[in-house]
């Protein structure tokens, strides 16, 4: 799988999207738009306490309220609800607590479901919630990871507050740190974040006899169907899951949720279709959160800055329970702390900790933003410590372009990359030297507004994932993707993909790939996805996998179509198969290109089947499944300049340059959009967002009034560009771009802020770097009060 195929006319073109036609006119099919005869509405009563025993639930009044069909409690469902699934038991001794979809006797985070009302409309359901009387016996909340694992702390689960410890080590760390001329030790905090996809979650579930159709705002219809079957015992072939138009996910809809399980159980119990749609404030406590780690990182270096060793110790907050991939998320970072650098020794140790907070799980980047933040932050610190330019320090340590493929200290093989080229391009676009000069001038003038320059030279592992690697990491499934191609008699093409887009533009990009592969018009391709009955096989969309894995499956399926067509074309042209070559989108006779057949002509002949060669079936349809042998490794250099007002602490991004190398590009318009959005989310972590709890364990950022998703007024325009070093792991030479911006931008911004403040002695500002925190950091460094 090393040959890079010639691309045709469509791949690489900035096609405007097919999806837009319905999205810009309000014809979109969101789950909450779906209505069915007799549809009942579910509302969930959620725990107002972080940790409490449920001593009684009185639902009598609610059950008798007008328009209420049913009220269900944990006691009602305890024997049928099972436990919400965790697909990633990272170690044999990992503590995996029982996780009922509806709490039965104990609640372990504010927002956990304790009862459900099913009523004629959403207003009646909400009214009846207020009539349910739940008595709680409050238990102490456990909110601090370090406290949680101390002996004597209140146990959240019988088995204790530690879920697992997982370690990866390579090289002689002792030797690397012994007598090292430079050792830096830092502690960084990854704050807790809320994904905030714009579409709140929504589920509709309809029973027909003993079969069920579920529409859900999910990224993972295929995994969801499998898990619904495994949790409820309803046979898999009696379940159909549809992800209609889905309004963003960012990992938050990579989940099998309590609400989905309960909607199915309630639909079964009542024998009628049900709908649940969350409010934003409900979602902020109930949708899984992201990040939340304490990172202790030690780096040993020679006097010239060459890295000798890296030692990483993490505490990762699981929240109250392990959800679908909760324990595995920090471990994706295990392979990324070493980033683009060479070193002699490396150790990664992570302890997963339970707290009485909303469970965490994948959020855009999942483990890799955390790792990239820490290594890029400490690299800037090391550069400052040594008095070396931060780009120069990176160059002394990074893998050179002629050293690929390169086996990294964490055990991955980077297939390709060119860090020199991306960095050179970024420096030029950024006017790096001019900005450094201006920075010095402002320091000399003791300007109250300081200029800071932040560097982030990131890489990431994308294209999740080689099934064998997932198996070695104890993940519960593979990482392949499926596609099939259906040729219609009129020459139109239906492409079925197992990827499940929720804003990524697969309908457009996949059409471009198919147009080139089959020599058909872009407009003649229809992409079908997100319905387990239409697209029966797939592993869905997350981890920047859809193009590298799913796109490759499409290429392979198209190849099979072409080969089937070849035999029929040879028969039609009365030549042998060997005499034909695929050229300009048709099978033509070698040396006599006027003699040829387009796929449309061959398809019609196959459909009519009047004169097919013996033994050839009258169909060109094909199916392919691709399991990658390796990850792909996008990389890039991001440079950020900030103005920091040292009197107010206000940070303003003055310019931001992102040069990404994501291999070949299918659609530059879509790629730029992914980078822009990713940058915004990474900048949001650096400057604005934090899921904050009070001392009682209440989420105090439960609405968008308190959780500061940045608006257009809070963000700059970005300068984006690309270098193109193709991946060797797939025939398209692509690497993935969905998470790059988020991974790269957080350290670029924070490094810029610290760079501006180093003259005052500041070495860290905890995220989000609000004006107050920046001001306090300056004041403290100057010797003032905190």
């Amino acid at each position, binding site marked *: 799988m090393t040959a890079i195929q010639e691309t045709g006319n469509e791949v690489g073109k900035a096609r405007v999207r097919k999806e837009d036609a319905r999205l810009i006119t309000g014809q979109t099919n969101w789950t909450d738009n779906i209505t069915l005869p007799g549809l009942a509405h579910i509302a969930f009563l959620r725990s107002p306490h972080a940790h409490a025993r449920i001593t009684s639930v009185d639902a009598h009044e609610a059950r008798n309220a007008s328009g209420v069909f049913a009220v269900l409690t944990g006691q009602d469902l305890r024997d049928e609800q099972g436990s919400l699934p965790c697909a990633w038991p990272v170690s044999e001794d990992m503590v995996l607590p029982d996780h009922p979809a509806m709490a039965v006797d104990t609640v372990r985070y504010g927002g956990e479901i304790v009862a459900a009302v099913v009523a004629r409309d959403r207003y009646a359901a909400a009214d009846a919630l207020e009539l349910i009387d739940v008595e709680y016996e409050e238990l102490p909340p456990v909110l601090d990871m370090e406290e949680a694992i101390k002996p004597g702390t209140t146990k959240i689960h019988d088995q204790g507050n530690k879920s697992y410890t997982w370690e990866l080590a390579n090289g002689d760390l002792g030797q690397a740190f012994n007598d090292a001329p430079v050792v830096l030790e830092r502690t960084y905090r990854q704050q807790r974040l809320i994904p905030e996809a714009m579409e709140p979650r929504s589920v509709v579930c309809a029973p027909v006899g003993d079969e069920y159709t579920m529409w859900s705002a999910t990224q993972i219809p295929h995994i969801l169907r499998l898990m619904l079957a495994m949790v409820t015992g309803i046979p898999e072939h009696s379940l159909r899951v549809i992800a209609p138009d889905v309004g963003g996910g960012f990992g938050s809809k990579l989940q099998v949720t309590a609400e989905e399980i309960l909607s199915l159980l309630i639909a079964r119990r009542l024998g009628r279709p049900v709908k649940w749609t969350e409010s934003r404030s409900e979602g902020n406590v109930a949708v899984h959160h992201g990040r939340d780690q304490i990172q202790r990182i030690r780096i040993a270096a020679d006097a010239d800055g060459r890295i000798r060793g890296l030692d990483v110790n993490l505490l990762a907050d699981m929240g109250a329970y392990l959800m679908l991939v909760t324990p595995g998320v920090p471990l994706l970072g295990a392979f990324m702390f070493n980033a683009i650098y060479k070193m002699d020794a490396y150790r990664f140790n992570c302890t997963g900790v339970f707290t009485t907070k909303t469970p965490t799980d994948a959020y855009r980047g999942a483990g890799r933003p955390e790792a990239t933040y820490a290594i890029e932050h400490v690299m800037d610190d090391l550069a400052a410590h040594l008095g070396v330019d931060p780009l120069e320090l990176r160059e002394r340590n990074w893998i050179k372009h002629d050293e690929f493929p390169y086996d990294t200290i964490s055990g991955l093989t980077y297939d390709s990359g060119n860090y020199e080229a991306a960095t050179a391009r970024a420096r030029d676009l950024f006017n790096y030297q001019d900005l450094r000069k201006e920075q010095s001038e402002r320091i000399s003038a003791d300007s109250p507004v300081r200029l800071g320059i932040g560097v982030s030279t990131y890489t990431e592992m994308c294209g999740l994932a080689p099934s064998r690697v997932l198996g070695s990491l104890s993940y519960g499934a593979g990482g392949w993707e499926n596609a099939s191609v259906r040729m219609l008699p009129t020459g139109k093409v239906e492409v079925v993909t197992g990827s499940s887009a929720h804003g990524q533009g697969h309908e457009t990009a996949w059409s471009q790939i198919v147009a080139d592969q089959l020599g058909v018009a872009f407009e003649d391709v229809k992409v079908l996805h997100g319905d387990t009955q239409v697209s029966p096989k797939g592993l869905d969309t997350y981890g920047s996998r859809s193009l590298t894995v799913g796109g490759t499956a499409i290429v392979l399926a198209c190849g099979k179509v072409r080969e089937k067509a070849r035999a029929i074309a040879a028969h039609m042209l009365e030549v042998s198969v060997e005499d034909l070559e695929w050229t300009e989108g048709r099978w033509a006779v070698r040396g006599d290109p006027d003699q040829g057949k387009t796929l449309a002509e061959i398809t019609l002949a196959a459909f009519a089947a009047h004169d097919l060669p013996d033994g050839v079936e009258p169909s060109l349809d094909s199916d392919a499944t691709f399991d990658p042998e390796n990850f792909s490794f996008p990389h890039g250099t991001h440079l950020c300049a900030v103005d920091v007002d040292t009197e107010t602490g206000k940070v303003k991004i003055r310019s931001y340059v992102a040069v990404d190398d994501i291999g070949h590009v299918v659609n530059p318009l879509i790629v*730029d959009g992914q980078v822009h959005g990713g940058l915004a989310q990474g900048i949001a972590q650096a400057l604005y967002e934090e899921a904050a709890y009070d001392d009682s364990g209440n989420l105090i950022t439960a609405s968008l009034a308190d959780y500061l998703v940045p608006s257009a007024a809070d963000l700059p325009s970005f300068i984006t560009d690309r270098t193109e070093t193709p991946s060797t792991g797939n025939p398209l030479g692509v690497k993935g771009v969905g998470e790059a911006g988020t991974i790269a931008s957080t350290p670029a911004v924070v490094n810029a802020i610290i760079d501006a403040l180093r003259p005052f002695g500041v070495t860290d500002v905890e995220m989000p770097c609000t004006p107050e925190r920046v001001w306090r950091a300056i004041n403290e460094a100057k010797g003032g009060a905190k």
Partner: protein
Amino acid sequence: MRITVNVDGVRYDDDVEPRLLLVHYLREHAGRTGTPVGCDTSNCGACTVLLNGTSVKSCSMLAVQADGAEVTTIQGLAATANGTADGGLHPLQRAFHEEHALQCGYCTPGMIMAAADLLKDNPHPTEEEVRDGLEGNLCRCTGYQNIVKAVLKAANQEVKA
């Protein structure tokens, strides 16, 4: 309560509960599901519609407050602007498409309606004025860069037309 509302050119006479939100009226009584709900604190702006030509967040109004009003949603924008039944695309819709100013598309109806109001008040905005003017509408996918470009492009087209 009895209300009369004109939604996208169609008159509706309905009895509604006084507490019914305008957005739920539009979605569930008038069937205009093109206007989605993104939050419950009027921060996200996904539900923005025009009420007598001025943008409002339809989640923070009651249906009864729209009695006697003309409401334009994303589904009626082109027809209202072009004066035709099929409508084609409004310049903002076209610009959003051409500039790739949407990804998941959930914020798009509200963003376009807010931008329509912005351009009505300020037909020649600067980039900064567009950014400030759309402050009440959140997008999680695009980083706003192409939204700003699209609004500026639509502004130029409307000037030319």
